[in-house]
């Protein structure tokens, strides 16, 4: 593998021939309006870098949680492995993976998936564990098998907690994806990195990160309201 420097700190974007405000690294509404479209591609990359890892992480963590749900001795080991992955700083992780997965989207996504595992796993387990014993007894009384009980009683009742985990994982991933450019993944972090002293650039790129985190949070919250309508009906 040949190494290409993922970042070039000293190379700032060419802004010659611009107005005084831009040359002074200021906060310039005109420049933002004129140049907003250059942030659209990185924004969608950032969306991709958030949604893909959360989706993959959800599948893995959810499967692990279902396996560990009935085999409780597995919870401790899985929690400590995912906890260790969670502790490794992302800047370091993006580099530690490169000799194995190379420079590019794969590395970024593998690292980001690792960070979602602990959060989602923990919340699925907590949610399943909080299901009232009465509800399970009633289900058994109705003659449901263990599998039916899991899918029709336990998981629906655990859904709010599970989705809360997905929300935390999503906002966290938006933030971590801002460093995915170190692994060659692009995204809004790349824009921040290319011109860190230009206030307009930092405000637009950083602001879009925050907006994206808030937006995805609201989408999942709406989904939660929609899917747990029975909860409000009961109340």
């Amino acid at each position, binding site marked *: 593998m040949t190494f290409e420097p993922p970042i070039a700190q000293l190379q700032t974007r060419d802004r010659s021939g611009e107005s005084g405000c831009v040359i002074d690294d200021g906060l310039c509404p005109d420049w933002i309006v004129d140049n907003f479209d250059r942030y659209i591609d990185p924004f969608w990359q950032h969306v991709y870098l958030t949604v893909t890892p959360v989706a993959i992480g959800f599948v893995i963590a959810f499967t692990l949680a279902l396996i560990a749900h009935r085999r409780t001795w597995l*919870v401790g080991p899985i929690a400590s492995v995912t906890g260790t992955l969670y502790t490794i*700083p992302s800047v370091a992780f993006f580099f530690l993976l490169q000799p194995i997965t190379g420079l590019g989207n794969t590395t970024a996504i593998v690292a980001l998936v690792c960070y979602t595992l602990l959060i989602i796993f923990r919340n699925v387990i907590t949610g399943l564990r909080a299901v009232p014993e009465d509800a399970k007894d009633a289900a058994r009384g109705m003659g449901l098998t263990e599998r039916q009980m899991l899918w029709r009683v336990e998981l629906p009742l655990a859904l709010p907690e599970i989705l809360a985990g997905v929300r935390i994982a999503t906002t966290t991933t938006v933030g971590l994806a801002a460093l995915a450019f170190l692994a060659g993944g692009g995204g809004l972090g790349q824009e921040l990195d290319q011109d860190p002293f230009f206030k307009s650039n930092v405000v637009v790129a950083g602001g879009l990160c*925050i907006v994206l*985190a808030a937006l995805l949070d609201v989408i999942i919250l709406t989904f939660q309201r929609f899917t747990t309508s029975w909860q409000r009906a009961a109340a």
Partner: protein
Amino acid sequence: MNTTLAFLGQFGGAIEFIFEERESVGGGVKVGGLGEIGDLAATHLLVSAVAMAVACAVSIPIGLYLGHKGRGEFLAISVSNVGRAVPAVVLLFFFIAFVGNGFTNVAFVLILLAIPPILTNTYVGVRQVQPDIVDAARGMGMTGPQIVRRVRLPLAMPTMFAGIRTSAVSVLATATIGTYANLQTLGEPILVPQQYGFEGALGAALVVALITLAADAGIGLMQHAVTPRGIKLAEEPRTQRRRLSLPTRRREAST
């Protein structure tokens, strides 16, 4: 050393970078080796320690006070939600563009990152203390400050330390990108590959990862040590009933 570590591929080179000086990629300068890594690690740890000390000094008293009085729940809880929505990287870049570079600014960013988990966890820890216990303490004639110091604080310790642990991990992680603000932390070899090369970046990444894992484990041990014996005893039968030891600490974003 080349031959012994060759089987590790680039990781071998990275380990070598940590222990031995080498010519920089651009040439002319010596980089790497225990001396430079030690200096970078010292700055890294210093800025992180300063930030953690200030964050603890600010948020623990506030958390104890609000928790004891049962006030400001909205503030104590929402501060960590807001903290999660603003990514550490974005916060740092805002600071670089609007405030400036250097040790103080990086320390300030790290303090802002460290406060929410400690404040929220201290508050929650204090609120969790059963009212009966506080009543008993009052019945024994303890004053308000005595109750906080001798009853609420010890019982809140495990939760509080979980917050300190979360903060320490994200502070150590974010100090890495302090390099963007001209602070020579362990992020330097990672973020200036033009000079340090890929093996340098990999070596520094290894050191950062090990320091963070060590800090996490160390604070975990401290957390165990400061947990009052009463709580440990109360938790004992639970483990016997094979209740699971899923970490209850809330862990938040690291960078």
